[in-house]
């Protein structure tokens, strides 16, 4: 009787999971059923497609470079300098994760617009954030930053504080500690964070669209290109770009999961 119950349990769990995975795979790969290999590869020869993909790559690499430079000090503050306001700082840095991207794009559009004193200040000093690539970098930065910081912070959190204290007494300054101990011990977390924020940035649509102005070759990123092509009714082109974006996501997620698993294995082992 007991054995039977467990069997039923297994069957239920397997069936539900199976349904979930097949539904998702069918939904996502469904776009390829509406095109042919011939059409797909023909679209890949199109220059405007590659221009948009290249632009997306270029901008997202700028975004993750800035993430890396800003994210590590912020993660350091959140993880090592815990204080009464750490909780608040944590919420603020994670806020873009739960806010609608459209709202973030809208906020940047308004703040950086010429009617706003802040926007006016930047425009007067030659920095335009509306309908420009730097505007896209700005919104994608805001949106992808929490992914990077949270993953790196978790990685920093797992470092033994007694070890950090001890290294101070061996003559390590804060710089030494960051570059020789904390960062090397968090390589996996940093790479996982970069992969995650990069795929978030390259796939970003809503906020980007708000500030992009859809200027071909200048601000027309790959996801926007998908929307534009769809609205013209050019489905084969949209499908081709969507396919490329999907493959990119798959691989960057693969990188993230791989390094995240590695961190997990390392931390579950003895930490000496």
């Amino acid at each position: 009787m007991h054995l039977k119950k467990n069997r039923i349990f297994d069957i239920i769990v397997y069936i539900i999971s199976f349904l979930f995975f097949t539904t998702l795979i069918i939904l996502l790969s469904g776009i390829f059923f509406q095109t042919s290999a011939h059409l797909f590869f023909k679209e890949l020869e199109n220059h405007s497609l590659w221009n948009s993909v290249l632009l997306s790559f270029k901008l997202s690499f700028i975004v993750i470079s800035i993430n890396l430079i800003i994210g590590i000090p912020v993660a350091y503050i959140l993880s090592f300098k815990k204080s009464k306001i750490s909780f608040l700082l944590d919420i603020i840095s994670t806020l873009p994760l739960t806010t609608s991207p459209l709202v973030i794009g809208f906020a940047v559009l308004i703040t950086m617009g010429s009617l706003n004193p802040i926007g006016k200040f930047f425009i007067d000093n030659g920095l335009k954030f509306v309908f420009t690539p730097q505007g896209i970098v700005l919104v994608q930065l805001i949106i992808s930053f929490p992914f990077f910081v949270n993953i790196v912070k978790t990685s920093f959190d797992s470092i033994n504080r007694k070890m950090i204290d001890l290294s101070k007494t061996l003559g390590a300054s804060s710089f030494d500690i960051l570059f020789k101990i904390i960062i090397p011990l968090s390589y996996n977390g940093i790479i996982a964070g970069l992969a995650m924020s990069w795929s978030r940035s390259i796939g970003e649509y809503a906020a980007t669209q708000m500030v992009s102005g859809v200027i071909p070759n200048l601000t027309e990123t790959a996801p926007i290109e998908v929307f534009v092509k769809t609205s013209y009714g050019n489905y084969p082109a949209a499908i081709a770009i969507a396919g490329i974006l999907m493959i990119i996501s798959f691989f960057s997620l693969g990188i993230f999961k791989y390094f995240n698993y590695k961190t997990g294995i390392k931390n579950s082992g003895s930490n000496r």
Partner: protein
Amino acid sequence: MKLLEIKNIHKSFYDKKVLDGVNLEIEKGEISSIFGFSGEGKSTVLKIICGILKQDEGDVFINGKNINNMESYKRRTPLVMDEPLLFSNMNVIENIEFGLKLNKSHKEKKNNKEIEARGEIERSGNKFYSPKEIMELLGITGLEKRYPSEISMGQAQRISLARALMVNPDIILMDEPFSNLDIISKVKVRKLIKDINKELNVSILLVTHDIEDVMNLSDKMFILNEGKIQDSGYPKDVLKKPSSIDTAFLIGTENILEGIVSEIRQNDNLMKIRVKIQNESKKELYDYNKMNLYEKKSRNNNGNEINSEIVMEADFNINFETGERVYMAVRPEDIMILREDRGMSAGVKENRFSGKIISSIFTSRMMEIIVETEKYLNFKILIPFHAYEVMNLFESKAVNISLKKSSIHLIKKKNKL
């Protein structure tokens, strides 16, 4: 000039006062230890010395120089903790050379004048040893290329020690360095610490809650209790002759009695102390000493109040006067069980009691016997196992015991207890 001086250190965490005016002095080349129960702030003292924590009040001096405002990484006071805490991203040799390399890169940045000044310190200080020499000394040669996950705990702890030695330390601070080691590694590491202390003339401050560590390693001990250094001195003296009842309890002194000095005869080198045996007071005392044997007994005798008196003799001691309340402590190994087949020599006439063995436990190498005298006074006695056999002792056997008067240590009674 003292190597390390701590003056009047106070430290509180939130509302809890941990250190309440700690003073201590450490000489160069010595192994000193701070002993006390867990949670008494022993580690806090170390953290203040090496600069990880900042004291609320008080000063720390190294070689006569006030280091209150010196950053932790500039003090040469490396920590060795209960875990080895090796950097898992580096192999063994990189771990050992960690502090050394940092020192070098700091040095390169300084201008010539400062390098000269530093060289002066190094010349006056310890001889410099290479990583290879240190590894050889600690018996970890051959592990250079291994990673921390590939070595044993005992080896890791030795590497941790080597890493601390490489920074040319003024003093090495050790926080319970043996508590995670098995008994064999513990003995080994203990010996190593003694060796490096002798060989390299390196000063060590050890924090421990294990009296064995103190006895086996240190030249000097400090007892930290209730936020203050309660007692200090050579470990053997402190152990044999604790200066206060608190210290006596802390270091696990057995056989403590309470009494009143009734007679002093300086010419005969004699003091007589009257001990009132009262059921209740004795029970309390034993409770405090974490010994529940008497409790059992008193329960059996419930309603049958015992109120008798004995007189103990002790050597003359100028610090006490007639009528003063005192505690007496006798070490368990100093109490003799008298052999039936021999006549009495002069020594064993002192403080003689007859009673019976109520319990005997075999501890490592020694028999721990509890003898209850006719007047319901319990004494713990340690004798070698072979003596136990030769004398044909067993539980419930009637025996005579003697406490040599020179072995009775008197402690002043403070009003506190």
